[in-house]
């Protein structure tokens, strides 16, 4: 695990690599703050007066029925979808609603999509290279050189995600689960302050799930992590605080035990036996 810690050590970032944005200010409270957010699509309310805060360094699990608005919530945070009303703040300084996706990403919010999306025409190695936290502006990118150090870091992540053998394969031919891993790897390279992870273990075996769980818990503390997942075993194994979304708003929040005994939650989500 020390590798990961090493990697996620924000203090090790070289000066010239630091993106030219002001740092996130979390002195006054949570790292993410959403208030009264509403979104509707053609009259359908996907997010309904949603209020939520994520604390700095927290690991938060979000569960909820299909269509509850979990992915939509992530879309809002990352700038993909603009809410109809409400406010979303990153730290106390950055109003996310005024920013576009790259700005938000540069600020330190990373995301893994529900459907794994990687750059299929690039190799696994290159995928990771692009995700690396460096200056993402055009000219610096043009002039960027591949340093031994970077190579090493990529190598480490490759090891973590178990794709060393496939490093020079095009990402397009990976199997579903392999793509999931690659995307997690990209997230690691990015070293964001806040990770949004949408269904990371779909299509993984139990063992892989365990590994993922370990990985995510080890990140928490230094980085904040929001995990959306339907696999209750997995959620249980990592969860500290769980939020249940339903019909676009928070239905319940609390520890896993609290939540899983909530009759409402059982009714709309878990079903009898969970």
């Amino acid at each position: 695990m020390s590798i990961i810690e090493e990697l996620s050590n924000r203090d090790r970032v070289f000066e010239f690599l630091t993106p030219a944005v002001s740092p996130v200010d979390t002195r006054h409270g949570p790292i993410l703050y959403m208030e009264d957010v509403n979104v509707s699509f053609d009259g359908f309310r996907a997010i309904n007066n949603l209020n939520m805060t994520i604390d700095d360094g927290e690991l938060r699990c979000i569960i909820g029925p299909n269509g509850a608005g979990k992915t939509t919530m992530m879309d809002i945070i990352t700038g993909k979808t603009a809410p109809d009303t409400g406010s979303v703040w990153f730290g106390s300084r950055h109003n996310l609603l005024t920013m576009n996706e790259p700005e938000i990403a540069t600020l330190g919010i990373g995301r893994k999509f529900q459907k794994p999306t990687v750059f299929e025409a690039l190799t696994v190695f290159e995928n990771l290279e692009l995700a690396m936290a460096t200056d993402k502006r055009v000219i610096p990118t043009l002039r960027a050189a591949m340093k031994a150090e970077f190579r090493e870091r990529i190598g480490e992540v490759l090891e973590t995600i178990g794709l060393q053998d496939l490093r020079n394969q095009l990402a397009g031919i990976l199997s579903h689960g392999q793509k999931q891993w690659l995307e997690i790897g990209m997230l690691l390279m990015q070293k964001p302050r806040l990770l949004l992870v949408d269904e990371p273990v779909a299509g993984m075996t139990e063992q892989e799930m365990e590994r993922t769980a370990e990985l995510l818990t080890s990140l928490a503390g230094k980085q904040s992590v929001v995990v959306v997942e339907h696999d209750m075993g997995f959620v249980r194994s990592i969860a500290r605080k769980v939020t249940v979304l339903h019909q676009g708003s928070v239905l319940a929040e609390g520890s896993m035990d609290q939540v899983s005994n909530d009759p409402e939650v059982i009714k709309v989500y878990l079903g009898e036996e969970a």
Partner: protein
Amino acid sequence: MPTESQMLKIEKLNQFYGESHTLWELELDVPKGQCTCVMGRNGVGKTTLMKCVMGEETTSSGSIQFDGGTELIKQKLEERSRLGIGYVPQGRQIFPLLTVEENLRTGLAVRKDGSKKIPERIYELFPVLKEMKNRRGGDLSGGQQQQLAIGRALVIEPQLLILDEPGEGIQPNIVAQIGEVIRRLIKEDGLTVLLVEQKLPFARKYADRFAIMDRGRRVAEGEIAELSDELIKKHLTV
């Protein structure tokens, strides 16, 4: 096991992606009226095997016999569904710009009874689909899409239903519900199910038989009860 009771009999199947040999001399029996679960780590070729059965990938050698005689390999992709194979692929593959209803209607063409209506039963099994009838498939949430994919495969009233990780991304109670549906269809309609699943509890609960794949080969097979921790350790952990 006598062949007549085999819905699918796969023998010595080999498949390549370009140069890379993905399925090796693969053997698999899928008995009628049962749920057979294929398991294995990521990338061992489960999806590839399903695609071979459906005809989405071409095989280089071997045979796949359907319902005690028909050689599937010789059939075109679109003819296989006419034989009564329903397919729920990994990643859902719904038609994003068709409405939910239209997605379901694509299956009507091959129905034996030539019906022009979507069977009410589908909506009973998945009420969300009725609710979202007129929304475009692509707008649905991941789990809703998964339900749609299953519903769509059921429209053709298949004899054999192939499910590639159907629980992926679906809320627990619906996963359970899908499991129940599978059971019910097996019991009521004598449906045969070929399931790919990673999640042991689900497999244990709803499957009758299992087969484990590793590196493109079938390495173990048997009644679900025979699925021992040892096997799991050997083939399913990294």
